[in-house]
């Protein structure tokens, strides 16, 4: 019912505190801006991953500075480096231990496709054992490339129908 009284149309006690939005958008907003990474540092790319986290590139600008070595506290696994067949089961196990929703960034050529290591010991792409959301090219990728991948992933998360996934 619309009140004819114009005095109550604007109530500053209420107006400043309420934002109307879709629940989807709110959930995604929360998820994108505090994406805690699980740094799966395996090889050379891990050094660039650390470079991304340190002062010059500062991954904190994108809300992903909280590196969690416990998979249970992480949202996004960054597979940085060569995955060997000996390591692959461990990567999968750590992925399994992450709680939903979870995402994976394959950082660098080795994690994406085996890269220059076409050999008997190297898993030819981490997507053979875990689903990958974003692939980053480079050997190793520059920190900017990793940040770009993170932004891409955030874009992807923003478009997810989170509420439907929750209730499903």
């Amino acid at each position, binding site marked *: 019912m619309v009140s004819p009284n114009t005095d109550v149309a604007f109530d500053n006690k209420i107006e400043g505190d309420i934002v109307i939005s879709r629940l989807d958008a709110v959930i995604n907003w929360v998820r994108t801006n505090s994406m805690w990474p699980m740094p799966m540092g395996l090889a050379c790319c891990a050094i660039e991953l650390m470079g991304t986290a340190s002062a010059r590139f500062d991954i904190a600008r994108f809300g992903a500075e909280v590196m969690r070595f416990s998979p249970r506290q992480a949202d996004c696994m960054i597979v940085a480096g060569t995955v060997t067949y000996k390591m*692959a*089961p461990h990567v*999968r*196990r750590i992925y399994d231990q992450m709680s939903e929703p979870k995402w994976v960034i394959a950082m660098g050529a080795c994690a994406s496709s085996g890269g220059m290591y*076409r*050999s*008997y010991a190297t898993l*030819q792409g981490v997507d053979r*054992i875990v689903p990958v959301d974003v692939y980053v090219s480079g050997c190793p990728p520059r920190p900017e490339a990793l940040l770009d991948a993170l932004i891409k992933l955030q874009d992807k998360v923003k478009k997810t129908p989170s509420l439907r996934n929750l209730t499903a």
Partner: protein
Amino acid sequence: MSDTVAAEPVADLLAKFSEATPRESLDHPAVNVPMKDAVAVLQWLRDEQSYDFLVDVTGIDWSETTSPRFTAVWHLFSTTKHTYIRIAADCTDDANPSAPTATGLFPAADWHERETFDLMGITFEGHPDLRRILMWDGYPHHPLRKEFPLAGIETELPDIEVADETQAKVISAPMMGGPFVASNKGEMNLTDAEPRAKDESWNEAKPKPE
């Protein structure tokens, strides 16, 4: 970097161990010894000639058709004289190559011998704990042997549960008909001046012809 100082122990070594012979080398002095003398030679070098630092133990596979097929190689360094010496010994058995362990002399030999066993398949007799070190336990092959392809041979993943869950396997790496060296024998073809795979009849899309 000439090794005039190091020539002396070689002469002494050859005099002391009658079956030892000089080995061809482009840099450091090198000696061939029979496998049964290997440990005695290493001990003599360590105790009498102050070669106290075991740098490296490794093996060489001279291909399936060669006999003796495997050679074990030790590199020693003297922290006082600052010279290297290379000791090589051929394995007598081509099918089941073995060498005596040097773990009693140098603790460093432990891991080097495990690695040589793992990758080359040379058994070190008397090693306290001869397990695989780089590949996982239960891996069926010795990758550095010449008959083993670079791409690898299909086997199971080390973890059965994960293998069941992901349906992933240890597969041969897609080589696109590699290895990548295109050794060009015969007519020189300047239109194909890029390095190419040796065998282009197969790739990821087309299976390898049997």
